[in-house]
């Protein structure tokens, strides 16, 4: 459901900065269904790529061979991402706070003596800064959705509505947060992430219980449309169940 929800946020003609995992699957699904003219861009430098299978890594040969053009790393960040040319960016997270700030650096302990060291920033910090809109994809629990995160690797809304402007970040910030329980969107005034949609058969109390801050619920809470047969068929074809 996270993958399908992510795919549905992409509109035909959008440009999308994609990562490996759910973002890739969602982008390929969107391109195969409702958004054939979606432009996929990977940080490895592949622009308008058309993978026919799931890439194994961000720089998979499949991405280079099916791309309109391949550019260098400084070019992808300096010419394409930084000026705000790319519409949507997908971001994963180990921890998220109520302003959509993200931690992918470490969990527990201190920066110098972490309990669990994570991979770090990669392209995420600048995607969070410069894409026009970003979509965060993260499983929701009290371990991941926290009042205070251990480290801010990528900025969402900082400490509120005025932070992004003061940091010189040109994108709008996280406009959608997709979880396994529902969808959160920033409150138009406070920028605090608010539950606006819930997946079918999920209880609102369960979402509240899985959130580390006092979660606000939209007055117009909707239920997401379950995956269609077409979406499920395509996903099974793209990602056949692993033989154990």
């Amino acid at each position, binding site marked *: 459901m996270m993958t399908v929800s992510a795919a549905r946020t992409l509109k035909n003609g959008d440009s999308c900065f994609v990562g490996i995992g759910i973002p890739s699957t969602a982008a390929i699904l969107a391109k195969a269904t409702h958004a054939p003219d979606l432009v996929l861009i990977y940080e490895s430098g592949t622009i308008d790529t058309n993978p026919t299978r799931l890439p194994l890594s961000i720089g998979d040969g499949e991405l280079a061979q099916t791309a309109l053009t391949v550019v260098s790393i400084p070019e992808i960040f300096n010419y394409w991402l930084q000026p705000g040319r790319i519409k949507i960016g997908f971001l994963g997270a180990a921890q998220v706070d109520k302003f959509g700030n993200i931690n992918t650096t470490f969990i527990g302990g201190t920066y110098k003596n972490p309990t669990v060291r994570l991979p770090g920033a990669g392209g995420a910090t600048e995607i969070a800064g410069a894409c026009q809109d970003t979509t965060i994809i993260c499983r929701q629990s009290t371990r991941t959705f926290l009042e205070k995160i251990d480290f801010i690797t990528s*900025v969402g809304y900082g400490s509120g509505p005025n932070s992004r402007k003061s940091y010189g970040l040109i994108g709008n910030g996280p406009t959608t947060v997709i979880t396994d329980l529902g969808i959160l969107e920033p409150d138009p005034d406070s920028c605090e992430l608010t539950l606006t949609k819930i997946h079918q058969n999920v209880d609102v109390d369960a979402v509240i219980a899985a959130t580390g801050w006092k979660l606000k619920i939209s007055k117009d809470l909707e239920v997401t449309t379950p995956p269609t047969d077409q979406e499920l068929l395509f996903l099974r074809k793209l990602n056949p169940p692993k033989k154990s």
Partner: protein
Amino acid sequence: MSKFKSLEEAIKELVHDGDTIAMEGFTHLIPFAAANEIIRQGLSDLTLVRMTPDLIYDRLIGAGCASKLVFSWGGNPGVGSLNRFRDAVQNGWPKPLEIEEHTHAGLSNRYLAGATGLPFAVIRGYQGTDLISVTNNVAEITCPFTGERLTAVAALNPDVTIIHAQQADREGNICLWGITGIQKEAALAAKKVIVTVEEVVDAFAPRSNSTVIPSFVVSAIAIAPHGASPSYALDYYIRDNDAYIAWNAISKERESFEAWLVSEGLRK
């Protein structure tokens, strides 16, 4: 004098204990053969620079070659964590590892400044993150024209940059294509450049998206077929994805990693 040498000679002559080494290749053309040679020769106290440490630096870190790592994303791409990197950062094994951590844009622009002979490069980034307070070589700067707050990243000039390319010609010019990442900037930023290649050809075929590095900026070339495996070399071989997955188990425990070093002939 010919720039063509054996890989053993090239590393012995040009890489020294304590050097700052950049080995680049963004998921493609990762110079694994050269890294194995560095482990085999027992080099130590290296500052290793690389955007994505990948398996290549996981091995060098686990083998005790590094005292510092400069990087921007330290995972096993498409698989998960780098266990030797984590063990070094979390537990100081086999020795403490100092880290200098950037974003991709930040580190790639450190190379860009180095390649263009400037003391720093300017980006819009890092502001509002905790990275700016823990990372050296990053500083806030005010634009002299607009007054905007921007971020300066210091130039990076490695002692040696090592890359892998598809081809060299007989004059020692280098040609690589497909995803060419940060290799050109890393090479031009360095004091010395070692290139391993799949093969030597009489002339390069015309190709879109190819990057040519002229011989006069290259210090040594070593022929190393499959020298980027288990990563891939476009038009030569594909990524050995099973090896990337298998690395998780090999690198999980110190004992299994050390047994692997011996079994690969990298340590006696």
